[in-house]
């Protein structure tokens, strides 16, 4: 009996399933209006800068997208960036260790912290909000302990290339961004684990009854989140050529915002990497635009807040249709 309605329904679903149209629309609107108001916006160097600036938040947003899709949350991102960044810096002084060492150390730190989150969340019934809030505090402390409260500076050129270098005139962070985006999308859409993430977030009980090991999937996403935080920490540290113990404060909120703006549902079960990327770009473009227009810093915050809410409202309206 549904047959008659089929084509319509099908189309409806397909549109909803790529629910990013709304936000994409909002994004385009904002870019257009910026391009019209300031000639300096739509220039290759400026766009390159935006992408470079967005890269770190985007990396974190990708990680937290996985987590939110499974119905969780990760507030420890910023602290993980600080810990991994400092850890990397400690081993990145010139003429000490080969370049891989700081990278592996940072990665290990990220995996450890993410794994800790996953372990506590799966083993105990403590809500992710609290667990990761705890890790956030712990991590901040660790970063300060590791660095003795001082920035860890004087890093090797090799290390500083990661965040500062260019390949064929393209800043390296952008290349990292593109590659990681590709991998994350693939993982989410084309692998069994990605599929399971949606299942776990959509209906944990049903996922279990379908033979999915919910605990394993949760471990996976939080650890993954740690790994991506480590990557972000490396890029940041290398970009500012110092390991900052107090770096990354509030990064978690920006990252989560990017994910949710990009259409990831806070209740889990839905979301796309493309949406998250657009969300991150949206935030990056706005703050770049506000600087270009030289809006006074106080008003920048107001405008930023208004635009973010506005963009998501717009998105919602589009969805309703």
């Amino acid at each position, binding site marked *: 009996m549904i047959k008659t309605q089929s084509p319509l329904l099908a189309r409806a679903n397909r549109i909803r399933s790529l629910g990013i149209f709304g936000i994409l629309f909002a994004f385009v609107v904002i870019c257009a209006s910026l391009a019209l108001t300031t000639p300096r916006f739509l220039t290759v160097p400026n766009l390159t800068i935006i992408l470079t600036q967005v890269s770190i938040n985007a990396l974190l947003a990708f990680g937290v997208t996985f987590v939110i899709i499974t119905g969780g949350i990760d507030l420890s991102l910023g602290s993980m960036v600080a810990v991994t960044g400092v850890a990397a810096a400690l081993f990145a002084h010139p003429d000490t260790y080969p370049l891989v060492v700081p990278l592996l150390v940072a990665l290990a730190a990220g995996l450890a912290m993410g794994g800790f989150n996953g372990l506590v969340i799966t083993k105990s019934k403590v809500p992710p909000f609290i667990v990761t809030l705890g890790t956030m505090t712990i991590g901040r402390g660790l970063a300060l302990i590791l660095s003795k409260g001082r920035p860890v500076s004087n890093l090797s050129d090799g290390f500083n290339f990661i965040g500062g270098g260019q390949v064929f005139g393209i800043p390296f962070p952008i290349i990292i961004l593109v590659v990681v985006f590709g991998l994350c999308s693939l993982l989410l859409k084309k692998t069994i684990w990605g599929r399971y993430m949606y299942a776990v977030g959509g209906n944990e009980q049903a996922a279990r009854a379908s033979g999915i090991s919910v605990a394993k999937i949760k471990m996976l996403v939080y650890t993954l989140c740690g790994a991506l935080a480590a990557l972000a920490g490396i890029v940041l540290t290398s970009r500012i050529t110092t390991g900052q113990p107090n770096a990354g404060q509030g990064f978690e909120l920006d990252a989560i915002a990017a994910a949710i703006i990009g259409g990831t549902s806070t209740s889990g079960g839905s979301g796309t990497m493309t949406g998250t990327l657009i969300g991150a770009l949206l935030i990056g473009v706005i703050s770049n635009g506000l*600087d270009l227009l030289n809006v006074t810093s106080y008003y920048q915050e107001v405008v930023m807040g208004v635009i973010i809410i506005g963009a998501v409202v717009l998105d919602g309206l589009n969805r309703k249709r």
Partner: protein
Amino acid sequence: NQANDDAQGDTPLIGVSMLSMQNEFIVNVSDEMEKKAEAVGAELIMVDAERSALKQIEQIESFIAQGVSAIIMNPCEVEASSPAVTKALAAGIPIINVNSATATKPTAFVGSDDVESGRIAMEYIAKRLGGKGNVIMIHGYMGQAAQIQREQGAREILTKYPGLKLLAHQTGEWDRAKSMSLMENWIQSYGNKVNAVFAQNDEMGMGAVKALEAAGIKDKVVVVSIDAIPDALRAVEKGTLDATVFQNAARQGSQAIETALKIIDKQPYEKEILVPFQLVTKENVAEFKK
């Protein structure tokens, strides 16, 4: 001296509340205090106010409740940290402000006037630009004492040199990455119109330098910042950062402890010890590097 002899007897207990143990300069000051206390045999309770005046007041209250013999406070805010001073004095406990001042006069003050650091930095820019050119200012976290005072000092000089034009000013929130992004965006909008950058701390100064270097116009722009952290001194030596302003953490720290002990032992003491700022440039950077 005698404090050492009867160490466990009546070792003076001093409560210390620092602005933020995440700020390198402040950490240096507190390290000096601990070294000094170690030397003269005083016990310190060192706490971090994390830039929150409220937390600082609460910590002072807690010190009072614990009956410490003296309090050293590195104020978060000029006004907002004042109640702490009032409370301490009311409780009859001597309180020494270190590094920066509060509206309410404490028992003693050891430190320097942040407004002065702003003046020194901007004076240097004025000198380098011959009194005329476009300047950009990168603020610390808006509304914090250091930000307000350093801005005030800088603006005094700007008004003195009508040739200097403040092209733009934004907050970099004391953060290197933020000010780097900020500078990158400014380079897009002002390109080579910028002649000088004043960043209210070295972190942000280094961030600006990175952005300018990446854009290949560092040599055209004078960059000055404040604090003289090792990284900045290295940059001054290399010539990438044109100047920074040094304030003497070692002296502020040790002087604070000494003053506190003098007051406890009822000895005469100076009510106000000013530790002057010093401009650090390529010429004299050697003196400051250890």
